[in-house]
């Protein structure tokens, strides 16, 4: 049960990452590798504020979001002002952020032991909410803190999703979506496509930075390596979500990204408990995304051939 709650919580936290990747990958059709750097950047900024300066955890978490936005803005400006290929722009910012993160943290890993984090908030809230350190949930003993963390993360993800859904249905949000779909048309209708793209990448990486910040507080440390391969993780979540919802509407897509993230984390937890070597995790994730990207075309081709055979 503890394992399940842990996997659900991490799935919820990484759903913010999935939402960020959804914005860059599906709305703007960019494979934005900045994510690998901005996740760590969010974690690093939050971490140093908590550990070294004892800043209020809510503020420190907000700072993680802003840090991510900053990284996304730089990527966006490289792509628009300087006309650098989006993939390369992402690689540049990600690489640069690696050094920046080491400078921010002062070393490659900072433990949050003793610092007041959102987790310690949750401990207090959990005690108030359930009146005990552990409670009985359908026969399993569950830590009140763990449950509170999960509930609050679920709430946060739900609110974020709702805000995104509403935003992408406003005049500004609709124009941003259209600028990924048909930039020429948006320009002809007076939309500044370049500005939309910068803002979209900022928003995307802001969510990723927030995910990094929450993840670090959940696991109680920030690490310079924690962002590696996370863009692929986000892609996997988005793709699973699309397979499940299969609807082009923005509401379904957002819900899909969240469900995809939670489900993917469950799958990973199950695979690990069945003895998957953690070292193979990134390889398996990459292979999964590869198959998911190639499968539809392959099925279409194979299906067409199978249909032709009887004729």
């Amino acid at each position, binding site marked *: 049960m503890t394992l399940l709650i842990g996997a659900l919580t991490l799935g919820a936290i990484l759903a913010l990452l999935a939402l960020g990747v959804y914005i860059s990958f599906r709305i703007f059709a960019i494979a934005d590798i900045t994510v690998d750097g901005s996740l760590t950047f969010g974690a690093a900024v939050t971490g140093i504020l908590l550990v070294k300066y004892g800043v209020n955890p809510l503020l420190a978490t907000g700072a993680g979001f802003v840090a991510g936005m900053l990284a996304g803005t730089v990527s966006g400006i490289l792509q628009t002002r300087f006309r650098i290929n989006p993939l390369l722009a992402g690689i540049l910012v990600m690489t640069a952020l690696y050094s920046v993160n080491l400078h921010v943290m002062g070393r490659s890993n900072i433990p949050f032991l003793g610092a007041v984090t959102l987790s310690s908030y949750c401990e207090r809230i959990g005690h108030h909410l359930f009146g005990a350190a552990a409670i009985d949930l359908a026969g399993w003993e569950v830590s009140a803190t763990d449950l509170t963390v999960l509930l609050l993360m679920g709430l946060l993800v739900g609110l974020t999703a709702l805000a995104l859904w509403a*935003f992408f249905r406003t005049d500004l949000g*609709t124009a941003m979506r259209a600028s990924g*779909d048909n930039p020429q048309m*948006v320009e002809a209708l007076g939309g500044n496509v370049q500005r939309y793209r910068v803002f979209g990448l900022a928003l995307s990486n802001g969510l990723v930075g927030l995910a990094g910040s929450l993840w670090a507080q959940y696991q109680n440390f920030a690490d310079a390596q924690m962002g590696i391969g996370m863009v692929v993780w986000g892609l996997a979540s988005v793709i699973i979500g699309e397979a499940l919802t299969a609807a082009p509407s923005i509401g379904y897509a957002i819900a899909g990204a969240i469900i995809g993230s939670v489900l993917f984390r469950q799958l990973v937890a199950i695979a690990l408990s069945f003895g998957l070597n953690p070292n193979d995790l990134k390889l398996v994730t990459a292979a999964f995304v590869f198959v998911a990207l190639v499968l539809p075309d392959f099925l279409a081709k194979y299906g067409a051939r199978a249909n032709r055979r009887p004729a």
Partner: protein
Amino acid sequence: MNATLQPMVRISGACKTFHAGTINEVRPMRGIDLEIAEGSFVIVLGGNGSGKSTLLNAIAGSFLLDAGRIELDGRDVTAWPEYRRASLIGRVFQNPFSGTAPTMTIAENFSLAAKRGLMRGLGWAPSRRLRDELRERVFELKMGLEDRMDTAIGSLSGGQRQALTLLMATWLRPRLLLLDEHTAALDPKSADQVIALTDRIVTRERLTTLMVTHSMQQAVNLGDRIVMMHKGQVLHDFSATQKRRLRVDDLLACFEDIRRRELLDESAAEMLQGQYV
């Protein structure tokens, strides 16, 4: 007619060279001067590579001029980026895929058009008021689309999309409407429908319009002035009175004339080459 009235469009000495200094160098604008009075409907004719589409793109701001000046409605827009000029200009492209966002619904596409050149904020898109108005005006198209407001626009036919794009371009009254061979990619029946719609909207709203076409028939039937382009320059300019007497044959003769001159150029060049090389 009215000399004191300033023209809606004033282009002077417009030049543009693409891929300058390479083997692909093209010069689609070689000093174009053109004035268009408010409310006039100008047809632009010309062969392939004559620079007629480039002229429209230059006005719309798809690129900036190398030399020359463009004024719209009394404002010097020469240095304005495309999205800024959109506050004055409505556009329909040749490719039906260019004017609409395919994965978005009809209503969403119009919510973008309803904010052309305006600040886009956090108002709901499309608003309820827009939806009601949209339903009414799409009904006027008689294409049966009024009940498909939430259909992705990409699933519609080219003719339907061009009709909707035209409606979008004129949703907020533009100071200038640019039509770039907007029926060239359509089947004859859809093309006729879109042309009829164009005529109706332009006449009713008295829009200043610049329309590029390949079709002599359209050129003769529509508009009140014909500008004929060749090699990046304005070759003929038929006023309303001249145009009224003009027939398709006259235009074809004009083109034949251009072709003969072209051939003459080529044979002259060959002759020179034969003599001196």
